[in-house]
């Protein structure tokens, strides 16, 4: 097991390198000059040139990339062109907000998704099942930003029961995360419901379910003890990746709800060509993806005793 983990960690290195290189390369192709955006239009070419030199933007692509990599390896993600703050410090400030949002969204999605999925599998072809299948389809098709704005309108403006923007300042204030969490997690919830339903239906048809019933166990024990653990194996794979997607998918929601997380930060950085911030956020998100992927693989061993990593 430990050898497996170490091997997997080593395999992460080329992945991270590849991602950093791709973003670096793509950003250099995006039209728009960061220096012009930073200083405004009425600046002499000499000043622009000197700023460009100062930022190292005049160097060839490969040199810039290698410099960046060298710095990153020393924990230096650079400074924002706009805010003039350390990118690493900016990340540390914003990550908790995004993380909380993704956790709330995941919690909503998993709790309701599993519940809906299990119930519709147990009552296959019932009215409830048909209703949830329809609901799943709707959930997967609704654009996140539209749902976010409708929620703001209904719960924030009409009923005035939940705040519609900001994070409530220092610390974690759950009420600020409910609407964005719901908007962000809604599609995931629909997906969990569908996935759990099909996985559970497959499991409920297995021979060992018949064995469990032949033992005289109640339907609840059969479904939740014998069915659930098996049905959750494919769902759990998805849960990990979905969490990572939610972290990365916060851009729209954070922008709509003015939540000061990394998504909002990335949105602003891209529009102002703030390369170091874009790099930092992308690298961080890539890291989240690969680490969660690894955690999912490790968690398999606990969920499914047939898997052993030797």
């Amino acid at each position, binding site marked *: 097991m430990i050898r497996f983990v170490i091997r997997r960690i080593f395999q992460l290195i080329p992945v991270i390198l590849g991602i950093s290189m791709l973003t670096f390369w793509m950003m250099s192709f995006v039209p728009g000059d960061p220096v012009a955006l930073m200083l405004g239009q009425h600046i002499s070419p000499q000043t622009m040139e000197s700023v460009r030199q100062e930022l190292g933007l005049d160097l060839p692509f490969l040199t810039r990339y290698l410099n960046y990599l060298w710095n990153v390896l020393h924990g230096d993600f650079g400074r924002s062109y706009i805010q003039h703050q350390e990118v690493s410090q900016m990340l540390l400030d914003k990550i908790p907000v995004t993380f909380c949002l993704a956790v709330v969204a995941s919690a909503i999605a998993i709790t309701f998704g599993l519940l809906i999925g299990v119930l519709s599998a147990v009552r296959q072809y019932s009215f409830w099942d048909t209703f949830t299948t329809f609901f799943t389809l709707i959930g997967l098709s609704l654009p996140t930003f539209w749902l976010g704005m409708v929620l703001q309108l209904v719960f924030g403006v009409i009923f005035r029961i939940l705040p519609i923007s900001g994070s409530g300042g220092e610390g974690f204030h759950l009420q600020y995360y409910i609407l964005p969490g719901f908007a962000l997690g809604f599609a995931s919830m629909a997906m969990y419901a569908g996935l759990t339903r099909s996985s559970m239906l497959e499991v409920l048809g297995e*021979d*060992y379910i*018949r*064995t469990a019933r*032949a033992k*005289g*166990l109640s339907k609840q024990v059969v479904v939740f003890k*014998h069915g659930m653990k098996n049905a959750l194996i494919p769902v759990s794979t998805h849960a990990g990746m979905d969490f990572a997607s939610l972290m990365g998918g916060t851009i729209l929601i954070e922008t709509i709800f003015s939540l000061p997380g990394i998504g909002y930060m990335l949105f602003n950085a891209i529009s102002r060509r703030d390369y170091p911030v874009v790099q930092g956020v992308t690298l961080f998100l890539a890291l989240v993806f690969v680490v969660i992927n690894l955690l999912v693989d490790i968690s398999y061993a606990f969920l499914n*005793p047939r898997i052993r990593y030797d």
Partner: protein
Amino acid sequence: MDQELLLRVKELRTNFHTDAGVIKAADGVNLEIRIGETLGVVGESGSGKSVTAMSIMRLIPMPPGKIVSGEVMFDGKDLLKASEDELMRIRGNDIAMIFQDPMTSLNPVLTVGEQIMEAIMLHQKAGRTEAKKKAVEMLKRVGIPEAEVRIDNYPHQFSGGMRQRVMIAMALSCNPKLLIADEPTTALDVTIQAQILDLMNDLKRESGTAIMLITHDLGIVAELCQKVLVMYAGNTVEYTDAVSLFTKPMHPYTWGLLGSLPKLDVWAKQRLEPIQGQPPDLRNLPQGCNFAQRCNQKKPICEQQKPTWLEIEAGHFVSCFLYKEEGKRHD
């Protein structure tokens, strides 16, 4: 009712509703099992053996299945009229079941110990420690070496034969009055088959559990069973003791079955005689006897009416127009 009688099934009918029509999987099943007796149920695939077993346990998935009519008297109680709560007390406790494929019949994510203990804790109201002790004891009885260690293993860590032993340990852990074994050796290789059958026979002798052994192997029937039930296309066609079945079979289908068996004492030149034709489509059964199309003793009445289940000789039941109630063959 016979004091010794443990289970009596009368005119059981179970249908499955599919898009292609109604499948009459069990279409008038009659059988009896006495205390401590082994009944062999034989018949080809699709003859309704497993459906009968699942109907007795009321484990037919509904929908698409439905038990339409009949009576299943077990220990003086009609299981078809029993509530789900009553059934839960009977399943695993009074009637236990083992299945054909030991590779898929155990839950892959629970230890075998957990799976055995579960039934003990449920039916015998035992605590975990007590149940675990009993489970180890059961594993030892079915011949699992190092039972104390193996109890914490998962099913995938056992071979097929060992898993079937685990299934048997699980089924017998609550001392059931009846064990329904649905082709318990079909998925195992021949040497393991013999071991499992010996084990079942030994345990039966020790505990006095009655067994309903579903099989399509007449050799197993000859070796283990006191009574035999022959099924064809959802019907029970003949029921008698094992000796009579082999010495004095009465139903033309049983003749066909016995005729298609290889024999050691007849030299290899003689070819086996298969029964001509195919079993009828269960969605579209004939008006008369289900076997009529393939029967070489067919009479006009066979294609018009269903034969009734008659006791031709004491304890020898046949469903065929060749016989009248008095036990005479009428030509």
